[in-house]
């Protein structure tokens, strides 16, 4: 026998160094906040000095805003180039956030009111504010919505919501007792074994509530403001009706309740996920519009700077 055995050392080193994520985040947040505050203090001081010396502080703050805007849109470029070793997206997003906060503060120096005057200045201000507000909204939803989605207990993929709904409807249709199914399709109450399925209670419930709820697509209002009252009311209503059912039919009602709950979760997840995506689109489109307006603004400023 010859030594051709294992060469692996008993101790196996970790692939990646270990750091506590929470402490790293805290550390990073503290540094970023400090840098932002210092940067704004320097900018405000210089702005004041330029103003005291009868200079043009708006040029100074304007260029800071323009450069900051370029930094902000660079995030999108980094996202599209994962091959390039340009640092992690997480770092870029943090830079994006704090530059954004800094720019909101500098905006207050550049435009000492909420919305600027003028034919071009006013839309520019509005777009800037729209980008800013959508940015803060994004910050809020990207922190809050993941927790809400996780609390649903099941993860859904954004592109497949229609498929999930279809699957649920098909699953439900397969599980509906044959008597109720025939009743629903042919409206022939005589064929229903009422003793067996309590069709006089379950039939209308299925026809008027459960089936329409499962078959319908969620509304725009639900998308904007996902109220889950309807599903809850429906589940309560079924629970209330259970006392009219034979004990062996309680399981049917419980199954329907579970479908409604699943569908409600699905719609809620759809609302949150699509809003998360819609927000990114709105923010990106508003940013592109802002860049176009800023370019026009700069050209105009330099055209009329001498007058």
């Amino acid at each position, binding site marked *: 026998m010859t030594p051709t055995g294992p060469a692996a*050392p008993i101790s196996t080193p970790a692939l990646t160094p*270990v750091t506590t994520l929470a402490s790293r985040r805290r550390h990073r947040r503290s540094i970023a906040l400090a840098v932002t505050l210092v940067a704004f203090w320097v900018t405000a001081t210089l702005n004041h000095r330029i103003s005291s010396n009868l200079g043009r502080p708006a040029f100074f703050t304007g260029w800071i805003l323009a450069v900051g805007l370029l930094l902000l849109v660079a995030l999108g470029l980094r996202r599209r180039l994962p091959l390039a070793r340009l640092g992690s997206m997480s770092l870029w997003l943090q830079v994006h956030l704090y530059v954004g906060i800094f720019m909101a503060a500098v905006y207050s120096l550049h435009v000492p009111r909420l919305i600027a005057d003028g034919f071009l200045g006013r839309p520019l201000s509005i777009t800037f504010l729209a980008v800013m507000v959508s940015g803060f909204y994004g910050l809020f939803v990207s922190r809050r919505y993941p927790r809400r989605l996780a609390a649903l207990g099941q993860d859904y993929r954004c592109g497949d919501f229609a*498929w999930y709904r279809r699957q649920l409807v098909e699953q439900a249709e397969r599980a509906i007792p044959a008597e109720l199914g025939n009743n629903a399709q042919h409206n022939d109450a005589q064929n229903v074994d009422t003793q067996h399925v309590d069709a006089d209670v379950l039939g209308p419930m299925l026809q008027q509530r459960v089936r329409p709820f499962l078959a319908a697509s969620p509304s725009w209002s639900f998308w904007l403001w996902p109220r889950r009252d309807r599903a809850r009311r429906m589940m309560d209503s079924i629970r209330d009706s259970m006392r009219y059912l034979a004990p062996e039919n309680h399981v049917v009602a419980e199954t329907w309740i579970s479908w409604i709950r699943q569908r409600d979760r699905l719609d809620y997840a759809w609302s949150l996920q699509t809003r998360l995506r819609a927000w990114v689109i709105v923010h990106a489109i508003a940013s592109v519009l802002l860049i176009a307006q800023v370019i026009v603004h700069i050209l105009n400023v330099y055209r009329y700077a001498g007058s």
Partner: protein
Amino acid sequence: MNHRSAPAAQHSMRPPVPDDAASFTAATTFPNAPRFPNATPHDEPRPTLSDAEIAYLRTRRPFRDLDPKAFPRAQPLDAILREQTRLLRYLPGDVIVRKGDYGQSAFLVLAGSVDLVRHHVAGSEPTAAKPAEPLTLRRLLAGYFSRVRSNAAPPSNPSPSSNAGLSGHSDTLTEYRSAEAVFPPRQGSQRLHHVDGRAAIRLQDFDAIIDAHGQARLGPGELFGEVAAMYRSPHATTVLANVESSVLEISWRGLRSLRRDPGFSEQLDQHYRHHWLQLHLRETPLLRHLDDAAIAAVAARTQLRSHGRLEWYADFRRSRKQTPAQQIESEPLVASEGAYPSELLVVRSGFGRMCVQHGSSSRTVAYLGAGHLFGIDEILQNYFAGGPQVPLQSTLRAVGMLDVLAIPVEVLVEHVLPRVRRQDLPATAQHWIPERDRRSGRKRWGGQDRRVDSKKAKRQESRVQDGDRLVSSDAMEFVVGQRLMNGRSAMVIDLHRCTRCDDCVQACATMHDGNPRFSRTGPTHHHLQFASACMHCIDPVCMIGCPTGAIHRQPDQPLVLIDEATCIGCGTCAAACPYGNIDMVAVVDASGAAHVDPESGKAMQKATKCDHCHEHGGKAACVAACPHDALVRLDLTHSRPLDAWLGLET
């Protein structure tokens, strides 16, 4: 060509694998590898040995020395030879065993001779490591446009949902590959060829390799690879056929059966003790500074023990559905809480679960992997603190398979503890050392900046005792229950931070010609999702049985990689992966036409999985692409990285 957007975890689009444990065992162990439609004829299972061949083997060492009465009637020696061995022929230069590969068999030279090369042999792996390509503007833009194209192109699979296999569509996935990826230029020194219908890798300039690095030559009657096979660890050497040679391959199961013969078993144990035990003991921090005499004394008294089953993956599909309490109850007991700590257990390989009695059930407090010690705290407390003897504070159970080295406590007291350095002791054990010994020992043990903070140790221990680790204990039970602690680079997603933007999947697709190598689905525990991406396991059972060695570990890298050029698409690895993290895909060119194997004329299939972006420097694009720090790759073979990431570690 993103065809990998499976809808949800429960809708996995992995190729179907047998559900029942029995068929899974059969499918993943030698010699009955599962057959896939495009498996080439040379990959057919070989017939069992004939009576004449068995009679011939019984005349050869070591079989002629075996006592047939040592084997039960249900499995006589002849049956073991018939079912658990096979005869193989190798031509000069053929690679029999490759350094770093995972052993599932031992080999007995019957005729001819083989050479052992302990150095890494360039070209013995399917494909040499590809260096990271320089990043040019052209590559950047190509990556971007491939992503745009992949998003715009209609998928050839009807819908992502169809991959789930729930809607009756085909399960076959397609992925784009360039011709270069599927038919790369052959390495200068390597050639894939067939011997007796079996794929083999031949080194053409092996004479020069042996001249330069050859270490030993084995002739008829000599056995090699048995330790790697028994402990399922990587081979330490590459073995090449020197001349045309006949070799008997003995599966690890056969090897284990043959150990019923006391003489044979003793021979194997002595071999391990002689060649490997001292080396392995020295790799334990506690023993690394012992002199030769002391380590020999420790080795002489150390016992080798195995608990559980080596083929743990066969039971895994059943056990993962059990509750933690059921799982714990079903795991083989190694040491009991409350017993006297009579020996120190050093985990050699496999995993153990440490649990404590909690109410009327058991609670997992940690899991142990290779190199971890069990019983050390109690032994040190008894040694240093004196007073009444402290019993074991927790129970150790084998999770799947656990190999331990058991060192008797009296050997420790005599040879180890008087000489041990403080920094080699576990942090939790530091405060048992009396202050006087600490002061005097600082110089003797070279303490200085390596001094361990006893407050921290106490804090850690109190956390264990007062139940602060309940949260992590919960997660730990999930990790152990799902056998995720096998992963050296498991993809973990914090669902409290993940906005489901799928930038990770997109980044992965961009790095791989538009083919993402994972789906953002997988087992979920509270807000932690363990995504279905290759975990680059410490016990990569997927590597067992690959007929061409296409799935391999590169030297000095913990990553498990698949060489597409050598992969024959047999699907053995995909069926063997207990986590379903390897996919079989039909490879197509840019026009969507299937690449065709020039030899068989059939459409090619390839195994595909996460490669940790090793061609781009090994930094996983998925991690870098996550804007919210929600996705990390963690080494779960130790519980500390997960604890630290969850912020539970001080």
